[in-house]
């Protein structure tokens, strides 16, 4: 598959800047910082635990991302379709996968900015005590990978519609299912009738279970592979959707 990295870089640059061209970036960063801090302090007992670690902070990330990543991804393709720019974009001498990758990387880089801004937490815990920095680093990597998986799913769904609201809601629902698949609620409902390997499979796909593994400080291969392969699969579907539904 021929790939022009120049095209990917150009699309990336345009999309990354586009986040900051509207109030979306500021609103997103504020909400993300406020919620991740608020939840860690008030619902996670960040201080009461009396431990210098970031566990209560990271524990909320799956729940935050399942709402916030669809918010970042929803405009990536739906807006192109609504405005008709997709027609211009896809008649330039570029390949669909170059545009798909460029757009995804722009959203992912924006997420990285949001995560970097939360590192003030890390500094606070370093000041207050001595957190296990290995765990913190592994957790950040896990959080970034999980966010990428949510984002790729959101971008893919965004390519299926010209309506950003629909893109957001569908992406949030799919993300919710992936988060919930590891909980007893879902597993108990399956255990009654599904064969054991299906239950195991569903459980192994759970974003929460896999993210928890990473926040324990070990970059476990299965968890990393799950998130990376989710990204690859979602982007591959994204390319197919863009190719097939160019005119819809």
């Amino acid at each position, binding site marked *: 598959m021929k790939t022009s990295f*120049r*095209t990917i870089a*150009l*699309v990336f640059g*345009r999309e990354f800047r*586009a986040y900051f*061209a*509207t109030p979306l970036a500021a609103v997103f960063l504020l909400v993300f910082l406020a919620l991740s801090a608020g939840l860690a302090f008030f619902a996670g007992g960040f201080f009461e635990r009396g431990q210098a670690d970031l566990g209560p902070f990271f524990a909320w990330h799956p729940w935050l991302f399942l709402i916030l990543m669809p918010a970042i991804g929803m405009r990536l393709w739906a807006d192109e379709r609504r*405005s*008709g*720019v997709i*027609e*211009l974009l*896809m*008649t*330039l*001498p*570029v*390949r669909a996968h170059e545009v798909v990758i460029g757009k995804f990387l722009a959203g992912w880089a924006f997420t990285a900015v949001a995560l970097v801004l939360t590192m003030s937490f890390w500094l606070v815990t370093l000041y207050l005590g001595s957190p296990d920095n290995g765990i913190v680093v592994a957790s950040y990597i896990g959080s970034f990978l999980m966010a990428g998986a949510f984002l790729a799913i959101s971008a893919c769904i965004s390519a299926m519609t010209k309506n950003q609201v629909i893109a957001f809601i569908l992406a949030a629902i799919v993300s919710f299912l992936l988060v919930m698949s590891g909980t007893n609620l879902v597993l108990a409902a399956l255990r009654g009738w599904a064969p054991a390997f299906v239950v195991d499979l569903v459980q192994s796909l759970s974003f929460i279970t896999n993210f928890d593994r990473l926040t324990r400080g070990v970059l476990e291969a299965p968890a990393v592979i799950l998130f990376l392969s989710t990204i690859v699969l979602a982007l591959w579907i994204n390319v197919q959707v863009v190719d097939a539904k*160019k*005119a819809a």
Partner: protein
Amino acid sequence: MQLVQASGLVKTFSRLRAVDGVSLEVSRGEVVGFLGPNGAGKSTTMKMLTGFLEPDAGTASIAGHDVFADPIAARRHLGYLPEGAPAYGDMTVADFLAFVGRMRGLSNAVLGERLAEMVERVNLAAVWNRPIDALSKGFKRRVGIAQALIHDPEVLILDEPTDGLDPNQKHDMRELISAIAPGKAIVISTHILEEVEAICSRVVIIAEGKVVADATPAALLDAAAVDGQRPTLETVFRSITGSKAA
């Protein structure tokens, strides 16, 4: 070699056959006016010519490159103004044109020259650093033309380039198209018949997805003449497409 060559293009949306066997050839130096009532299949045909839409049957090529088998090569020779002149509203005119130019592979040196020429030719100096969202319809349309011309393509496909412009702007747009026409093959869809007489060297009329006339404006009028009196193009258009629809 024909710069634009399409044969037997067919496109069906759910049950509606939007384009039904359209063939079209455009050679260098020609400006083809693509006419037809709303819903006749003009935009759909143009989308297939550009390779944006895949036809159910038929082939299309731009400058000798099949638009589906070798899309990247075909698109390099093509400048396209989609219906409604879409653009990234959050970008300034300068940034947007530079983005399109780079996506088309222009080097920075060439891009600089081309941007300077676009400012001049398409008359964009007044809005150069303004966001596209803040522009009037006339300027947006001009930005759309400028992005189609940025790489100086051999083939231009313009879907309603003068739609929504005031009479002065329409005049300017026609002047521009006439000025760039030599050496290029241009296809323009329009509803404005006077425009066709002013700038087009050939008229292709489609109705219900089929080509119903393909001639020079003069030949079309002569063929419809009664007692040596040429009718207006509008009368011809109405008699050809109106009877089809009835």
